[in-house]
């Protein structure tokens, strides 16, 4: 794996640019640990100052230094995306492997649930969920909820791989040598599926960040945790755009677009590397 990654960085331009973009974003988010201001305090610097040497990204109408604020926001946003991705990967893996391996009734039942999640309009459900949880709607809870909604697409993919693995010889050998289903799935099948999981992770992070931004901008989240969406939310609250505080909109949007494109390039190039035949990048989880 390490070697593959090194080769990818060295010879695949898409992968390399994806890594560079994400490295920039990650480095920026790490800056948040050195921020001189707590993220939620306002009016700590003069408001509405355009980008300058003192304030490289300007200051917001709430008197916050956008540079430092944005570093918090992108850190939280990335963490959010990764959390959703990790939880939903686990779900997708378990359900995909079990369904693909066992087949039959269990498979059909799991895939029906799976198809429901693919078909169901998520946005209304998430908005309703916000209304149920209200102020208990923390970042972590939203992540959990999104993970519960975001596994279906990839579970299907994993299932199809698992199905093809089931007919392979080593599975038979495993069964004859008395391995349990869990052992077969974990020891024999998992290694084949992991590369796919890895590339779908990037797409899933993209998807969840996208939804988080959308929900936050529309005001359906906890505004105490600065994320990219919450930042844009506040900018909209101050009609930053028409008030000429363009930097308040421009930098968060630019940064999140960089993140999206970076993750996307990684996903595409890794996917081509792992399996040139698979199709990628459909909208949705």
């Amino acid at each position, binding site marked *: 794996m390490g070697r593959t990654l090194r080769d990818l960085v060295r010879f695949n331009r898409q992968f390399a640019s994806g890594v560079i973009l994400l490295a920039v974003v990650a480095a920026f988010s790490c800056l948040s640990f050195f921020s001189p201001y707590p993220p*939620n305090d306002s009016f700590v610097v003069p408001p509405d100052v355009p980008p300058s040497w003192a304030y490289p990204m300007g200051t917001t109408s709430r008197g916050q230094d956008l540079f430092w604020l944005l570093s918090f926001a992108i850190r939280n946003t990335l963490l959010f995306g990764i959390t959703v991705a990790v939880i939903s990967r686990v779900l997708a893996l378990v359900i995909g492997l079990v369904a693909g391996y066992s087949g039959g009734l269990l498979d059909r039942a799991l895939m029906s649930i799976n198809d429901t999640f693919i078909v169901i309009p998520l946005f209304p459900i998430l908005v309703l969920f916000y209304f149920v949880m*209200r102020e208990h709607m923390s970042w972590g809870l939203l992540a959990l909820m999104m993970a519960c909604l975001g596994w279906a697409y990839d579970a299907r993919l994993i299932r199809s791989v698992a199905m093809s693995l089931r007919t392979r010889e080593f599975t038979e050998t495993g069964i004859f040598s008395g391995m349990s289903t869990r052992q077969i799935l974990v020891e024999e099948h998992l290694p084949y599926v992991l590369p796919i999981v890895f590339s779908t992770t990037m797409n899933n992070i993209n998807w969840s960040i996208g939804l988080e931004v959308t929900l936050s901008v529309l*005001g359906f989240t906890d*505004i105490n945790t600065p994320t990219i969406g919450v930042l844009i939310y506040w900018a*909209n609250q101050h*009609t930053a*755009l028409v*008030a000429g505080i363009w930097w308040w909109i421009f930098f968060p949007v630019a940064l999140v677009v960089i993140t999206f494109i970076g993750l996307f390039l990684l996903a595409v190039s890794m996917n081509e590397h792992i399996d040139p035949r698979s199709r990628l990048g459909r909208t949705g989880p």
Partner: protein
Amino acid sequence: MRLWRSIAALLLMGSGIVEAQAQGTISNLPRKETLIVENPEGTIKNAGWFNIWSINAGGQSTGLHQLGMDTFWYIDPQKGVDGVWDNSLASDKPIYNADFTEMTVKLRKGIFWSDGVEFTADDVVYTIQTHMKTNGMRWSAPVQVNVADISAPDSSTVVFKLKKPNSRFHALFTVRWNAMWMMPKHIFEKAGDPLKFAFDPPVTLGPYTLNSYDPDGKWFIWQKRPDWQRTSVARFGEPGPKYVAYIDPGPPDKRVIAQLNHDLDIIHDVSPEGMFTLAKQSKSSHGWFKGFPYAHPDPTLPAVVFNDQNDTFKSRDVRWALALLIDIKAVSMASYRGAATISAIGVPPTGSAPDYYHVPLESWLQAFEIDTGKSKIKPYDPTVGKQIADMLRPSMGDQIPTSADEINKSFGRGWWKPNPKAAHELLERAGYSKKGDKWFMPDGKPFAIKLMVEGEGRPVMTRAGSMITQQWRQFGIDATTVVAQGSMADRRAAGDFEAMITWSVETWGGHPDLSFFLDSWHSQFVAAPGKPQPPRNWQRWANPELDKIIEQIRQTGFDDPKGLELGREYVKLTVREMPTIPLMSYNVFTVMDDTYWTGYPSADKAPYTDPVPNWANTKYMMGRLKPRP
């Protein structure tokens, strides 16, 4: 390549369509004769429903209640066209008998419905009787609670017999934002169930009638009645605009853009920044005040409303401590960028209220003292208004008034001076303790407050809330802001909050009587914890002294000077008890564009009414608007 050619062709065709669309925002009507107004209700779900007597079924401030409806009296939140009180459908003020169990109303003659039928006492009787008979209409409940009988001795007199004495019964028919509107008998008696009748097209009593509307609820266009002289506002001359369009212009950014393009004559409200942008970029746009702070102060009083049934806030010391931790200047800056009109007392600093309450009580406030147990302090700082003006002057320049009088009018007078030391002492007396940087409650748990705000619905209040939590946090209280977008009304009624930014005080604006909100503060209406609380005592505060004041007001006439005395007693009581922390008036950035129309109300030249266009009182505006020459 052929592909490119076809793309180019498509683009060309597209730009042709765009070209054809670019001229004007409104089709088939002369822009010069049309006033375009924002309806803050947004998109109306059920656009074709004009039966305003059913609850919550269609739009209200779509022009329907401003231009189409009428009732006995209007009280103006400002000075009024001809005094604060206007006899609209009534020809005189309400006539009560001695014990307030009967109210007689004399009706104006020569008023006609838009379909040519004359308005008479029969319509009034029909309206009242329908509400008595039918449950679930908008005013069924107050009518059923109060009215025993109604009769019409002649076609221009109605007599209400009340179930019990009520000196404020006329308030039901006195417009402050809205009131109980009169129904056309000749239409509704043929319509069957009054709850299921859409009333489309509406037959109106106001000077306008419906021209057209969007089935998707984005716009409603009204047109001046040719017989406008047969309506109650004919006394003030012919309304200027031939057409009035109430539209949903979208979020604040879009409203600003629309007015910059002169496609929206009156913006209901924008963010302070949007207001500043319009003031800077458009010569023709202006607010209620000529310059800063622009906004119209509505007779409502945003405050930190505690849930006083919550153990934490049962203690007056805690409430006062929290008030002494607020730096109102910072809150004013954070919420309104300084364009707020602050008030230390429980009456909105708008309309005639300063003359009745703020000015006379100023010296009492300055002398007011609290004893923290360790020290005695005089918390009131009378110069805060001036301090805000001074703070703004460097960046805003001459826009900031210099005369004390104007400063008081624009920014308010004094407020509580931040006093962490006194707050510390008060909290300690209440059993709280500070360990390290953090405060702990008497039971040893960290002192945490969740302050609820409404979010996008009221962005300015959301900002004020996050500033206040920041100040509390800096003192060592674990305070956070909670956005209750959409669920605010519910949670407020259910008492499902610790503290919130909202208002439980609303006044007539132009009249010193406080019964409009105060009556509902009587402890008889305070709901048990967990049960829904009726408006407007959201803080669920019960106080025997207050009950006494309210009971006395009930027995006093509307215009009786004794009422004012009782009102001041209420103010002093709430200053001592601090059941809510009054902050400022709700300033609405109503922006008016002079490109097509002039004669809008304004603070200095023409304070004849409130410009905020969802108020039914804005019907008086139409008569003053003139096309720009």
